[in-house]
């Protein structure tokens, strides 16, 4: 088992890798780890003289490139101007469908979550949607979601968007749009492929050898604890404090 800071730094590092190559990523106002991952990639690109990336933090006035109200993110995604986004889910199934509505029979569900937000739309339009859910358990990663807030694969309609990867506290999966399922890419330090199998409610493709998720190198760790922490403090002060305090 790793400590909480190492866990967060690992997730941040993986996300920066998943975002490599994008120009514009949007992150939710309450998604500090995805935001940190995007900031890490931005910092690296800066250092390496690569093209800069734009990070839109939804709901923030300071990190907001938009001037047309709440609809602009959605329009911007439809125009192909948002390359990556993060979605979670109370349930995520093996076909990449996500459920943000609740469990049981609609409408009087056993457990009701907030609702689908923009997922039903953005999943179709943003090329690199990263499913990010820290909890890795059979109740989250289910064979079939009780309610499809957003569908991963819809052959009946042309789309540029969909799931790119699934990242949890235990592992990283790639999503294959052709087969419509996940393939385990790597298992985080401290866990085994068996742990992942035990705690995953859906089937997925398993490579012959499952490599461990590489831990962040020294330069990355320093970047996170320096510049990224400073940048986070502006938008996510609570999270920045918790990350610093964990040291």
């Amino acid at each position: 088992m790793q400590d909480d800071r190492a866990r967060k730094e690992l997730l941040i590092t993986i996300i920066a890798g998943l975002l490599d190559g994008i120009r514009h990523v949007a992150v939710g106002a309450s998604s500090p780890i995805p935001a940190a991952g995007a900031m890490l990639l931005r910092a690296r690109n800066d250092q390496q003289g690569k093209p800069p990336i734009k990070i839109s933090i939804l709901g923030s006035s300071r990190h907001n490139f938009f001037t047309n109200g709440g609809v602009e993110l959605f329009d911007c995604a439809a125009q192909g101007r948002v390359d990556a986004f993060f979605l979670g889910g109370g349930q995520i199934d093996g076909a990449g469908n996500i459920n943000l509505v609740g469990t049981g029979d609609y409408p009087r569900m056993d457990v009701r979550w907030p609702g689908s937000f923009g997922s039903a739309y953005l999943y179709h339009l943003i090329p690199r949607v990263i499913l990010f859910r820290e909890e890795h358990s059979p109740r989250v990663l289910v064979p079939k979601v009780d309610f499809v807030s957003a569908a991963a694969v819809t052959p009946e309609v042309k789309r540029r968007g969909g799931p790119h990867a699934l990242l949890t506290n235990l592992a990283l999966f790639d999503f294959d749009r052709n087969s419509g399922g996940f393939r385990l890419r790597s298992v985080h330090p401290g866990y085994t492929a068996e742990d992942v199998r035990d705690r995953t409610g859906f089937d997925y493709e398993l490579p012959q050898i499952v490599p461990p998720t590489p831990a962040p190198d020294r330069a990355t760790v320093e970047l996170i604890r320096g510049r990224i922490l400073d940048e986070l403090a502006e938008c996510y002060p609570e999270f920045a404090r918790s990350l610093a305090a964990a040291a």
Partner: protein
Amino acid sequence: MTEMVSLEALVASIAPGQSVAIPVDRAGVSMAATAAMIEAGLTGLHLVCVPISGLQADLLIGAGVAAVVETSAVSLGEAGGAPRFSAAVRAGSITLRDATCPAIHAGLLAGQKGVPFMPIAGIIGSDLLQVRPDWKVIDSPVGEPGKVVVVPAITPDVALFHAPEADRFGNVRIGRYRELATMAYAAKRTLVTVERIVERDLMATEDSAAGVLPGLYVDAIAVAENGAWPLPLWDEYETDGAELSRYAAMARTDEGFRVYLSTFLSRSKQVA
């Protein structure tokens, strides 16, 4: 013509059963009018959350003011789920019209444009299409063959929000929160609470006018200082996170909610 009225008069112009469009937490929620609506004993309202809501919807649901909730989510954000919303869903005491954010924007846009529907990208494959039979999937009548979702126009009886300031002509400063304009365009009537009335003409210059909803769309304005509290108001004040957490904790039970509500209403009265 825009009328300048009291908060009570503003709220009294909303009739039971009407549909009321309300904005997302950060875009200027009239919590002052929310308290006044609960005080007035309004019932049967159809909330249209643009495109989601938080404390405002949860209070209106818990207090029995809202009967229908059209929304893409109800959540207290960092303070957690919306307890009265969840309880009402489980109890079946509200009618749900689950949506996805851009579909609510699209419905209002259809209202703004006076067309019966609006096409929208995405959504296909979502179970929302099962629970929203008023949303249709059609073959695109132009261009490449393909399926497109269309959603019906949303034309709320009332649009209700809070803004920093208005002028004597009824022009209201909305800054970049253009969804407030969309709500007003689409709604039959628009009611606004503001921190203050200013003496200058907000439409006087091209620059100041850019962030203004013209009085043409504003039916009544009431002054309510700190009127979004405990939610934030841009350029004015931040979220009162402690108050939201207190609410989230107390509203877990119906009893706790009643206690919270009574304090909330009496505090709102003192401020007003």
